[in-house]
């Protein structure tokens, strides 16, 4: 079969003998490698890396970049992912040679600048979230969850209690139960009410002495603030359990409400969402975990401390759950988050969250005439709509999402949360102009009209992207996960 190719693989541009990056000549007296290393330890066949020139590499990756939608090029209303502007100054800051060249095992005397940044990031997060301590080690939200769950588990075990059950609402992200499983605990699902809040009666019934942790996303994955959160926290604490907050949606709360104040004991924050570090096409992120004082002894080691004006890393932590990162975590991401904190200042954060909430509510109001099942009342930073009854015959949420691509909008998060049929989760963030939001609403209106007048047009979408709908079944049935020259 002859396939059409949008952009050849870098391997397909390779020509034997073409020189890549020139290295300087070796300026030390050389020795015969074979004198030092037995033949069995020497590579027999060199790795078949591409043989391409720098101009080819530059053009290849620039052309690949053109095949992407991104925040820098498109409105990216991906709910729960907080696709907001990543300040360009941060690209410059992380490339300052004295930051880029920091070895992670440096003695503290030569790390005072970076340790101050880490210390300050922790202080900002503690203050904004109403927590007493943060670990900055986790590399992403899911690793933060795992860390938080392990910390809660260690807390209970230290008190001589075995509490193997974690309660999770049915609206939770898949990483929640997966992290519980990796922590060796059992996830039990709590029902939601028809309007998407935690079913407090179901929660109360399941809050047995076996329960060590209750995980909630706040605002919820439906973009709503949990109205009974303080009551829930009290029930959880009365049962001897801890309250965990998945901070994926924190962008709605910064400067407005401290999670610690409503009774949250442990939370993770996705710096690549609320604190504007780039998503990078799937990372690197950072998932710092904050805790109340009683849980601090169990946080990962090491931690940064300030003693007599000198910053140090503290390793002597007898009750720690251990280490979750080979070194100090995704420090480059933490530097970006610190810079963002300083740019925003506390007032800027408040304006940020308020504007995100305002934009979502504006969208919600404008979309209400288009979606018959739109719930009443205000939302927080994102609006979750159900596509049920909104589209023409046979047209699904997936089709509408794909059609949005044709109009230059990335698709919202779809089919999540699982409890909303044909869900479409739209998060405008504080950055998008009213003009963009208006065009987006008009576009959705137009697509809905198309779905009724010409449903096949929508079902066949996208039409204008570099490739059209993919054969995902083929990809999974006959996995081809790498380039092999004899398998063209």
């Amino acid at each position: 079969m002859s396939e059409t190719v949008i952009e050849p693989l870098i391997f397909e541009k390779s020509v034997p003998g073409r020189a890549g990056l020139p290295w300087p000549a070796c300026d030390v007296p050389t020795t015969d490698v074979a004198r030092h290393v037995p033949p069995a330890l020497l590579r027999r066949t060199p790795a078949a890396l591409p043989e391409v020139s720098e101009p080819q590499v530059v053009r290849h990756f620039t052309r690949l970049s053109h095949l992407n939608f991104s925040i820098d090029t498109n409105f990216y209303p991906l709910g729960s992912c907080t696709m907001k502007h990543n300040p360009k100054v941060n690209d410059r800051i992380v490339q300052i040679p004295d930051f880029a060249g920091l070895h992670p095992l440096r003695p503290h005397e030569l790390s005072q600048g970076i340790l101050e940044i880490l210390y300050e990031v922790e202080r900002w997060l503690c203050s904004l979230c109403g927590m007493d301590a943060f670990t900055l080690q986790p590399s992403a939200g899911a690793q933060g969850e795992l860390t938080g769950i392990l910390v809660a588990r260690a807390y209970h075990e230290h008190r001589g209690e075995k509490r193997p059950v974690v309660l999770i609402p049915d609206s939770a992200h898949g990483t929640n139960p997966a992290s519980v499983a990796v922590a060796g605990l059992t996830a039990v699902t709590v029902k939601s009410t028809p309007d998407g809040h935690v079913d407090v009666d179901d929660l109360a019934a399941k809050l047995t002495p076996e329960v060590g942790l209750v995980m909630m996303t706040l605002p919820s994955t439906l973009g709503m603030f949990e109205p009974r959160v303080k009551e829930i926290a009290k029930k959880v604490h009365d049962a001897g359990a801890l309250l965990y907050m998945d901070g994926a949606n924190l962008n709605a709360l910064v400067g407005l409400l401290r999670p610690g104040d409503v009774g949250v004991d442990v939370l993770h924050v996705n710096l690549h969402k609320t604190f504007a570090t780039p998503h990078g096409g799937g990372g690197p992120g950072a998932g710092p975990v904050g805790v109340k004082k009683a849980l601090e002894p169990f946080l990962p080691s090491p931690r940064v401390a300030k003693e007599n004006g000198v910053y140090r890393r503290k390793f002597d932590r007898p009750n720690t759950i251990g280490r979750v990162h080979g070194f100090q975590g995704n420090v480059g991401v933490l530097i970006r988050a610190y810079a963002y904190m300083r740019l925003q200042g506390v007032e800027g954060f408040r304006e940020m969250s308020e504007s995100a909430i305002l934009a979502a509510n504006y969208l919600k109001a404008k979309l209400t005439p288009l979606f018959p099942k739109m719930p009443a009342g205000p939302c927080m930073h994102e609006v979750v709509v159900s596509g049920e009854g909104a589209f023409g015959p046979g047209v699904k949420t997936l089709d509408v999402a794909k059609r949005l691509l044709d109009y230059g909008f990335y698709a919202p998060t779809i089919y999540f949360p699982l409890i909303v049929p044909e869900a479409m989760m739209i998060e405008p963030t504080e950055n998008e102009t009213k003009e963009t939001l208006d065009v987006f609403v008009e576009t959705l209106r137009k697509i809905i009209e198309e779905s009724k007048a010409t449903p096949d047009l929508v079902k066949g979408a996208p039409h204008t992207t570099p490739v059209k709908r993919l054969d995902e079944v083929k990809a999974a049935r006959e996995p081809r996960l790498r380039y092999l020259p004899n398998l063209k």
Partner: protein
Amino acid sequence: MFVAHTPEQKKEMLAAAGAARFEDLIAGLPRELVRPAFDLPGSMSEMELVRHMEELAARDHLAQSYLGAGAYEHFVPTAVWSLALRGEFATAYTPYQAEASQGTLQSIFEFQSLVAELFHMDVANASMYDGASAAAEAALVAAKHTGRTDVLVPDTVHPQTRQVIETYLAHSGARVVRVPTPSGILEPAVLAKHLGPQTAALLVQTPNYFGCLETHVAELSDLVHKAGGLLIASAYPISLGLLTPPGDYGADIAVAEGQSLGLPLAYGGPYLGLFACRHELIRKMPGRVVGQTVDKEGRRAFVLTLQAREQHIRREKATSNICTNQALCALASTIYLSLVGKSGFQKLAELNFQKAHYAQGVLARHGFPPVFEHPFFNEFAVRCPSPPERIVQKLAEKRVLAGHPLGYYHPDRKDQLLVCVTEIKTKADIDQFGAQLAEAAR
């Protein structure tokens, strides 16, 4: 900051939302807790911020570094980050909408291909957080695959890698079993004593934490396989321009810290966990993976695949909880390896080897003899005439990092310093370093 709504627009938007004032939108929040006071500074302009950050960075200014021990200073060609930081890559999300994400998806496919080729393994995933968590996830895969409990970790594995594995295994039913390595490498006879019916895997790191090549790796591989366990190999990617890749000595899973492939040291991250395995383990492999397919018009295209393993489908039954990984770092490595190329990569490894071997001789002549006689790549331990911590401190005053004192994790090696020399050092640098060390030891 970065809010685009004018005061007039805010009023319009509030009115459209049916709210008289903003407070109506957050009426559901507990009123007494809203807008607390914060003890935090106000905002900085970009100009002030740049100056502030440059001042912080300058405090940690350094002249020279001979510190390795798991993170390595290599030359990064300018094109790597000028391409990787393009907004179309850096500000895109995980490529769930494949039609609008082919750039990211194809680059990940190329990354997987390069990693598999480098390790000489069948397949690789789209990346893990770092080398340590990649090793931990490999240990979990081995325990699940074999249904056994013991993951053997010799003392020649980086102690911080072992610590992360211990955290991940703590409640999995599996455990880390440490294997002593007094000679600086893992001896087959010592391994044999630790193998048994509960052996799930052996983790071998080569070059190892002490800089030595694990010279018996083929024999170790045979031994663990005969005992019914898997071989997990951790390799230093740059060394694979010269040294045998894990696939050639029978590794079932290969992992690595990928930082050396174009990523800055950045005080420990973001780095890049590399994870590759044999075909048989594909469906147990953690993390995202990109596959090749076609679109409905027959064009070649790439898509996230085998998602049935992953948390967003399988929830508590997933093979791992990983979701976001290190995609942008993987992209940077892909660009790096493309720029360096086939012969450049061999030459790079050779440069590291030669410079480090020259340095070992220089240091020996200055009274810092090698600790081990095993072959090494670009890192070696020396015996210090005075306590290594003091030498490190004295050179730190000159803003030089002398190396990594091995006594920190290995109390029986209190007189030893681990020194790393990569391609970026010149002969003059090395000669000067030798003299500085000798002076500091006086």
